[in-house]
């Protein structure tokens, strides 16, 4: 469990980093928090000849909430984003899902943008980027480009990022007025990868549900956003529980998970449906005495 030999580079400017990527990108890997990459290196599942450590770069550690979205710099840790009140206010899904990302010790080091670049279908954040209709921003040879979530993930653990490109940020659009967002997953142990997870955005107009979309963790091999609007359209919020079975059925009809050593495919499918139904019911609960977008599904402060 020792990695193969590699050369470590530690650029201090973006230009320097991009130059290193041009030179070594095809045989190298960018490392920020290293929470997924280092175990892969130690088990020799990958043997990049160069590691380009971007943690000394400046200007990539910002969280900016403006123009109806949350932009997250490449060096922002999960934990910082999870605890940002501004990000939470604009897009409560962030905090709700980040609270489910592994353990606090891992969230203290791991970066949200790094997790997106890793593109693990078991990861929470690619699903949230998709659900919110977000995008990432990359810098490379041809300058800066913005890649929408649907063009970014091209397969499990695979993105459309070019070897010479560096992700500099990810942008999560905020909830619109009348929208509520929540996330729910079931893990074997606290902090494990989910057996299944579901994120949802529910749209409510005049106390009536008018829209519902969802994305999934550990259920689909790439992020997908499923429109479940039909199952709730026209149903009063107060009667959301009556729509839950239809939502569950719609989810089960449209996902096709695979079985593995932790769960059978049928179980995963049903679990995704159950979680979706329950999440709908929770989202339909009246917001608890505050005008803030609700995120009562997020764990309490400091909870793992």
């Amino acid at each position, binding site marked *: *469990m*020792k*990695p*193969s*030999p590699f050369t470590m580079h530690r650029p201090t400017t973006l230009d320097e980093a991009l130059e290193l990527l041009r030179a070594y990108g095809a045989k190298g890997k960018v490392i920020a928090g290293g929470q997924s990459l280092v*175990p892969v290196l130690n*088990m*020799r599942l990958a043997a990049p000849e160069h590691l380009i450590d971007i943690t000394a770069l400046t200007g990539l550690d910002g969280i900016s909430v403006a123009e109806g979205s949350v932009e997250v710099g490449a060096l922002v840790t999960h934990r910082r984003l999870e605890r940002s009140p501004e990000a939470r206010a604009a897009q409560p899904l962030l905090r709700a899902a980040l609270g489910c990302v592994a353990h606090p010790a891992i969230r203290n080091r791991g970066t949200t943008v790094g997790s997106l670049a890793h593109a693990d279908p078991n990861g929470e954040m690619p699903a949230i980027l998709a659900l919110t209709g977000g995008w990432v921003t990359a810098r490379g040879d041809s300058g800066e480009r913005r890649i929408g979530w649907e063009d970014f993930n091209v397969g499990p653990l695979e993105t459309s990022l070019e070897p010479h490109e560096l992700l500099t940020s990810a942008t999560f659009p905020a909830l619109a007025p009348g929208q509520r967002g929540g996330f729910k997953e*079931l893990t*074997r*142990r*606290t*902090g*494990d*990868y989910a*057996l299944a997870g579901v994120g949802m955005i529910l749209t409510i107009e005049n106390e009536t549900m008018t829209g519902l979309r969802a994305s999934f963790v550990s259920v689909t091999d790439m992020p997908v956003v499923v429109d479940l609007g039909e199952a709730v359209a026209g149903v009063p919020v107060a009667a959301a529980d009556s729509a839950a*079975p239809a939502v*569950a*059925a719609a989810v*089960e009809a449209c996902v096709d998970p695979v079985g593995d*050593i*932790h*769960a*059978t495919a*049928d*179980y*995963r499918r*049903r*679990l995704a449906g*159950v*979680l979706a139904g329950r999440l709908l019911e929770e989202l339909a609960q009246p917001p608890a005495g505050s005008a803030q977008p609700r995120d009562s599904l997020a764990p309490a402060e400091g909870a*793992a």
Partner: protein
Amino acid sequence: MTTRMFGQKVARREDPRLVTGNGRYLDDLGAGALAAAFVRSPHAHADIVDIDVSGAIDVEGVIAVWTHEDLPGQAAERLPMLLPHPSIVAPMTGFALAKDHVNFVGEPIAMVIAEDRYVAEDAAGRIEVDYEFLPPVVGVRQARAAERTVHECAPDNVAAHYVQEVGEAPASIDAAAHVLELELDIERSACMPMEGKGVLAQWNTDDESLLVHSSTQTSTGLRAALAAKLEVPLTKVEVIAPDVGGAFGVKINHPWPEELAVACAARALRVPVKWTEDRREHFISSAHERAQVQHVRVGFDDDGRILGLDVKFWHDNGAYLPYGVIVPLNTSTHVMGPYAVPAYRCEYWSLYTNTVIVTPYRGAGRAHAVFMMERTMDAIADRLGLDRAEVRLNNFVREFPHPMGVVMQDGAEGCIDSGDFVTSMAKLKALVGWDEFREYRERARAEGRRVGLGIGCYIESTGAGPYEGGHIEVETSGRVNVWTGLTTQGQAHATVFAQIVADELGVPMEDVHVITGDTRKMPYSVGTWGSRGGVMAGNALHLTAKKVKAKALRIAAEALEASPEDLEIVDGMVGVKGDPSSAMPLAAVSVLSNPLRYAFDESAKAATQFARPAKMDAPPVAPGDEPGLDEQDFFSPMRSTVANGMHAAIVEIDPETADISVLRYCVVHDCGPMINPMVVEGQVHGGVAQGIGGALYERMAYDSDGQLLNASFMDFLMPFASEVPTVETDHLESPSPLNPLGIKGAGEAGTIPTAAVIASAIEDAEGFEIRQMPLDPSTLWELRRHSANGEIDRLRRSAQQTDGPAANETTRTSA
């Protein structure tokens, strides 16, 4: 009067050092030593056609590359079969480095010695091995079918076959009013200590001797094995166990292939060589446990009293059998548990498979036995419509000693020496609220919640012989040095042995210093396993302390001109009972005990030949006496003590997702008088945590090719603190007549019944038969579907309930 330390909740003295990062584990030792890495088989069953090491030899920093042909003499022969037993029909062990053939994924084939571990692993990756594939045997059922074989010497894959009988079980069952049969399944798990195995071997060229540090449970065992395999005199080998980060059984087998290969390399290269096992190696090349398929046939009367019990089981022992049949043998001898079974027959087959070897894991076969018996007890209760606790009460042994009629792992006939099962059951029922549960269940059901109550009882043979020793020396400073030969891997030996010695010697605990696992001081010892440390070394040290005390009183009596019978030692002062003014420090007695020629400090000055009154009529050390307050003694019992306990748990299961939560976990435990109740409870808590792992989380997921699919902590799920319930404990202290302190072992108790208890609770909640462990949400959810399809029998008691839980309660069909 000094407070008696025995029985006090003394805080563990080792913790401040260990939790502040000051432990010295194997990998902390040997700075500058060369590092070893191993090439391991990626295939479960294959012939080795060729090994090409040329790519590795040229790697900068590589010192040596060894394959089997580089092993000298005895080291090239098969590893020892440590525990021969009459039931073993086809003994087979592996080599330190594979010879021509590999039998499991992870088997070591070549060893690279390099300047550091990184280089060693780089070079190991360049060694190319050509294989001719053979079909692997994976799992009990495939081994039993014997369409494929692991070893030629065992064409039916049977390594061992054994029958033990008490009375005429088949006939008794045939004559019984009721008969039940059960087919049960337990999966593999493993010990998974925080620290893996590891060895540091240093060859001293000056005196041709070998010093080995090993993360081991038996330094004396490893010493003897290495001396034999390296063909050097025993006196030229010493083994020290440094701080060991947990073991739970996996460090009892010896020598490990790596220990032997590394020791040979250190001798050949004349430099220190170290190997520290990494986690992947631990998964695929140390040892696992637990997999069995079991068949039970039981006959009983209208009260659920067992009249005859006939069990057969098939035990997966992995690719080799270096540690013999301890695991299946323990299973076979513990099935009857705390129950008076008038007729018992047990037949087992221990089977070779192309998987990692199986050696004891905390409980060592006993958890399997308890699973068998307790599933049977619940089945009897359900068949008769009786309360599960009542059926157990109707079967309990009530008179002690109770001879069991079976031969145990120590070769002696088993005998339950002490206990009070009826009282223990009453305590457990009170603790968990047994009689109030029905009402709780109704309330929960009204809220749409599904809960269940489970129970499990067990006995455990503990404190096995043949012997263990103690050595105590009182320095002239008053410091009391205590040695015992068995090793420590987290058991609080430095605390509990000091309590025992402090009591007997009458000294403050702070003056007592405990050292374990060093063959240089204690060459005669057995090791730490089978809940024996406290019983064996505890009693040995108690006896040794008595000898030291007797000598101290004799010497002090002479100095104080009193009779030894009139003296006592209190707080380190020896004096006439009830007369503190007469007392002298034990340190001074130590000075007097050793007449000196040379004065090198103040206390030595007091002991020189001119300082003491000349006794012209006797030599300075009388015939038959020895200098120093320095004694050794050994304890060797007639047979193992038998501890016992009972657990109960309440679980809640999600009606839709089948997610299982343990709401309460209660333990009533009887290990006799407790040396330190806090340590006993810690042992129980840790044991329950491992038991919860085995019940709900852990399994070794082998595929049909013999590849272990979950060989990392990402996919092999050990419970975190967040998954382990708060353990509520109560104790019964029924003393054992088998040793001076009356104590019984406690180390494995928490683990043994846990899977059975959780199975019992899940069955109670779900209303259909649970016959396998572990259970996870997905597996349980699939079982619900099978139950709904009528493929699994529903419990009679829940079939009678019209509002009982339905399978996968949902508002629509999920299948």
